[in-house]
């Protein structure tokens, strides 16, 4: 069972969630012994402190053998028999122990898991019930979840190390952190070259001296050291898993004969390459390579020689590619090549020619001179992996049809779509001056009052030929082409104008405007806000500027400075889609924030219970503890409103409470309820 990629990290995450969800110390202890016993398949679980079992499971409630539990060696369990025990320190002499059938000895992985559980428990017990510590616990939970995710994602060792360094730095809010093996830097995050101010050991399964050094200029206290120690225990497990599974992952993703990528990995790399296209502005090329005459070789010389031939051809294929390109064996005598970031078909054709040349050179095997050839089909593009694979396959058949030893380039309507995109980009650039953009407003409603307190402005584009283009289609284009800055300025101006109009009739009405990353990066932004407020007369405190976590995290220092400036003017700063980014809660505290909008995916599960509801509750409580307002997004069911109200969330937004509508429709809505926006 322990062969699972993340058995122990998953167990620890479940343990942490259960223990930190407890309301008091006895409940946390009881939950700890139960979870530990379940995780280890143990007959007994206990916490022993000062010779007394302060929590236990496995004995009748009224017959807990305190002295035996506090002793060492095998444990006699009534009705079960002798059990072997494993113990780990919790705090000040207290230990967490589990015991089970001695025929199932505890493994090293289990030893480190229990040690990690002990640390986590000690941290949770010590910090239970104190506000600042709850935040710490949540930050820890978040970091641990992230470390787990990096293992789940089948990341390599390097990525796991990088995640550990980053996690450590963010957990204690340090400028940087490094992971060192035997004194050598293995992974660094941020300003990791600064002097180490806090250092904890990682338990490496191979026994190498291994540590996390937190770097920075400020001193750290004992509580931060504790947090970091608990993190290090967890990271140790992630590290062990990453090592154990690097091999398994390699096997799952590679062709055992040639060592090339298999179809699964090829497909995955292709999709990643396609995702990078918008940023690089380049294309991806797929080459399908079919070996000509392979069957004849196999028939004449046997499979063993056929296999050797494939290994040799695979080696040649790999040798002529750049590191960033991928060669794969898709099956039989079929290979594929992925070329990332090519400018056009010409680059791919060049590679195809070299492939043909390399594969038709004679191969010496077992004293035989074997000659085969190949046919290559090429397809290039920026989107849709399936289309690319199909097109390359099609082109390969075209090449074969034209005679062996040839390549063919698939000629799709690629040009047409590229042109279409260019023209849309040009149209978008003119959209502002032609007045084709307009705003819809989605009401924000007070959870307790049920009254509209404001609205979020959402931009729409009415294209003269295409009709209304969905924001999902033109916002990314605008981001890429830089048009977003101009669009953003217009939205700000127009939303302030409309907001001021509403404000004259409903003085407390607030209007929300989304800021893009590019806008935040421009020093011009503050002047734009000043200008919009001055021109429209909207009171600054009625303008809510909404940013996503991702936008904030691009350049933290610059963003923090700019937001301070904006906040000095009295405007409200709100974090959009809160909870979906992976930013640390502590990190967010660097920004001057007034409110958070809880992402719909958390609100979604609120009335259904489960982990998501727990997270939503944690987010709202966390926000409240910082004095922040909360807005629940994506509300679709009345039950969700009730849950939000019960959690003390002030505002809500979503289809249930009002879809985005034109300004005059919202005005009508406000007029229909004269006591609005009080």
């Amino acid at each position: 069972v322990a062969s699972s990629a993340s058995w122990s990290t998953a167990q620890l995450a479940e343990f942490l969630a259960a223990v930190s969800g407890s309301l008091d110390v006895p409940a946390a202890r009881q939950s700890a012994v139960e979870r530990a016993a379940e995780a280890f398949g143990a007959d007994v679980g206990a916490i022993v402190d000062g010779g007394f079992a302060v929590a236990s499971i496995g004995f009748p409630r009224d017959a807990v053998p305190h002295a035996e539990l506090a002793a060492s060696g095998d444990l006699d369990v009534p009705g079960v028999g002798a059990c072997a025990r494993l113990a780990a320190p919790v705090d000040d002499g207290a230990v967490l122990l589990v015991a089970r059938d001695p025929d199932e000895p505890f493994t090293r992985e289990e030893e480190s898991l229990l040690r990690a559980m002990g640390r986590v428990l000690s941290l949770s017990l010590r910090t239970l019930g104190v506000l600042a510590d709850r935040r710490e616990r949540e930050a820890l939970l978040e970091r641990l979840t992230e470390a787990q995710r990096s293992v789940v994602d089948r990341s390599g060792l390097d990525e796991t190390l990088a995640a550990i360094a980053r996690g450590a730095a963010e957990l204690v809010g340090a400028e940087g952190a490094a992971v060192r093996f035997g004194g050598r830097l293995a992974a660094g995050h941020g300003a990791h070259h600064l002097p180490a101010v806090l250092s904890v050991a990682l338990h490496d399964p191979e026994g190498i001296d291994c540590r996390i050094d937190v770097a920075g200029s400020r001193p750290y206290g004992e509580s931060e050291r504790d947090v970091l120690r608990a993190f290090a225990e967890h990271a140790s497990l992630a590290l062990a898993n990453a090592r154990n599974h690097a091999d398994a992952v390699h096997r799952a993703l590679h062709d055992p004969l040639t060592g090339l990528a298999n179809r699964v990995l090829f497909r995955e790399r292709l999709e990643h390459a396609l995702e990078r296209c918008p940023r690089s502005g380049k294309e991806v090329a797929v080459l399908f390579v079919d070996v000509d005459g392979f069957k004849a070789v196999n028939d004449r010389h046997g499979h063993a020689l056929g296999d050797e031939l494939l290994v040799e051809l695979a080696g040649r294929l790999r040798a002529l590619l750049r590191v960033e390109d991928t060669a794969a064996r898709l099956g039989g005598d079929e290979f594929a090549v992925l070329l990332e970031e090519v400018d056009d078909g010409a680059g791919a054709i060049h590679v195809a020619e070299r492939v043909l040349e390399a594969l038709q050179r004679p191969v010496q095997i077992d004293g035989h001179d074997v000659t085969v050839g190949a046919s290559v089909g090429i397809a290039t593009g920026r989107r849709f992996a399936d289309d690319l694979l199909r097109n390359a396959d099609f082109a390969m058949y075209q090449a074969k049809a034209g005679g062996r030893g040839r390549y063919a380039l698939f000629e799709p309507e690629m040009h047409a779509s590229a042109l279409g995109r260019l023209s849309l980009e040009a149209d978008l650039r003119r959209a502002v001056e032609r007045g084709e953009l307009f705003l819809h407003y989605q009401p924000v409603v007070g959870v307790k009052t049920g009254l509209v307190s404001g609205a979020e402005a959402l931009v729409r584009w009415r294209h003269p030929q295409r009709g209304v283009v969905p924001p999902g289609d033109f916002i990314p284009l605008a981001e890429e082409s830089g048009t977003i800055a101009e669009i953003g300025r217009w939205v700000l101006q127009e939303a302030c104008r409309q907001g001021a109009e509403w404000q004259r009739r409903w003085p407390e009405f607030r209007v929300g405007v989304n800021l893009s990353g590019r806008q935040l990066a421009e020093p011009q932004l503050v002047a734009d806000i000043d200008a919009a407020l001055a021109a429209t007369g909207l009171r600054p405190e009625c303008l809510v500027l909404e940013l996503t976590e991702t936008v904030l995290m691009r350049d933290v220092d610059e963003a923090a400075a700019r937001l301070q400036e904006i906040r000095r003017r009295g405007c409200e700063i709100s974090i959009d889609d809160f909870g979906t980014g992976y930013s640390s809660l502590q990190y967010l505290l660097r920004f001057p924030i007034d409110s958070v909008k809880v992402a719909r995916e958390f609100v979604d599960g609120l009335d259904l219970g489960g982990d998501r509801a727990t997270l939503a509750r944690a987010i709202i409580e966390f926000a409240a503890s910082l004095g922040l307002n909360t807005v629940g997004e994506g509300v679709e069911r009345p039950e969700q409103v009730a849950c939000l109200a019960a959690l003390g969330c002030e505002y809500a937004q979503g289809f249930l409470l009002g879809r985005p509508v034109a300004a005059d429709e919202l005005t009508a809505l406000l007029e229909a309820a004269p006591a609005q926006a009080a």
Partner: protein
Amino acid sequence: MARNFNRWLAVGRSSACEAGPAGTEAARAALVADDARLLIVFCSHRYDLSTLLAAIDAESGGAPLIGCSTAGEIATGGPGDAGVVVVALGGPGFSVRTTAAAGVGRLREAGAEVAAAVAELEPREHQALLLLSDGLSGDQQEIVRGAHAVLGGGVPLVGGCAGDDLEMRRTFQLHGGQVLEGAVVGAAIGSDAPLGIGVRHGWRRTGEPLLVTRSQGTEVLELDGRPALDAYFDRLDVPAEARDDADAFTRYSLTHPIGMARGRGEHQIRFIGGGDFERRSLQCIAEVPEGATAWLMEGDADSVLDATDAACADALGAIDGADPLGLLVFDCIARRGVLGDGIATEVDRISDQAQGAPVAGFYTYGEIARTRGVNGFHNQTLVVLAVA
């Protein structure tokens, strides 16, 4: 019926349509002596249950009783539907205490309350707690946790979740003359001879493990970061018709459940009741927590029947070579789905293993068996209690 100098166990059944005559017939057949200590009733939810209990009570003269509605009853002659099976345990070698507790929203407390009956038993060398509950009322492992916290590891837990012929709406638990819903009923059994328990599922792992990256209760949304249904399709050789037809999918998923690594014991099986083709999710019958490691499992008639033999052998092995008085079986309804008409074969095989002793039980919505460790709630398993 089988008996020795101080203990006996007998089974009666009836397939009469009317509750009164059915109860009378089954009880009369089971009550072979006048010192019954416990009656266990497994019956169709379609009966008028109060009438049924009254008829049984009239025959037994008020012997302690627990029972539940089912998704089919089992007795020595084979599986049955829409009938009633009554098991009677009697003789001075048994001591029994029955209890009932409301379970909805308080499953852990209910488990603890029912377990408290063990302390009131007239002392006997061997003990077990038989539990019947409402599997539609939440995470049944909570009942096991509650009972285990009171009893410790020394008292085995065994039993199953009531059924309603796969309507999945309401199940009933029976205690004395009471017809309950959402309840946990228990019989603490003390015996001069051993009570042996076996539990097996008969599924095999296929391929590499998957991580449950997103789930909400019983709905699995993502496996390994991908939509769960797509990951399921990719890993298994799902036939084309099951990829877009809900019924065909369920027929397939019945034999390809999820197995979770919980602790270090045998896998915990989670039956996949359906796929949501829009949300690309898998709908399971019991909770699949986020962060759990899961395998896709496969099985067929042979592996299910192998598990039957193994569970019986485990239970019989645990009574130290004594002759069984009878076998009580708690058999997941999903296993019946795998075997189809071959289900009669399973009951025959259990009877063969019973060496002539009577067999009784029912098709369940979840099984309880805890002998070692703390995990005790199962899906898609056969649980066998051998009474010596």
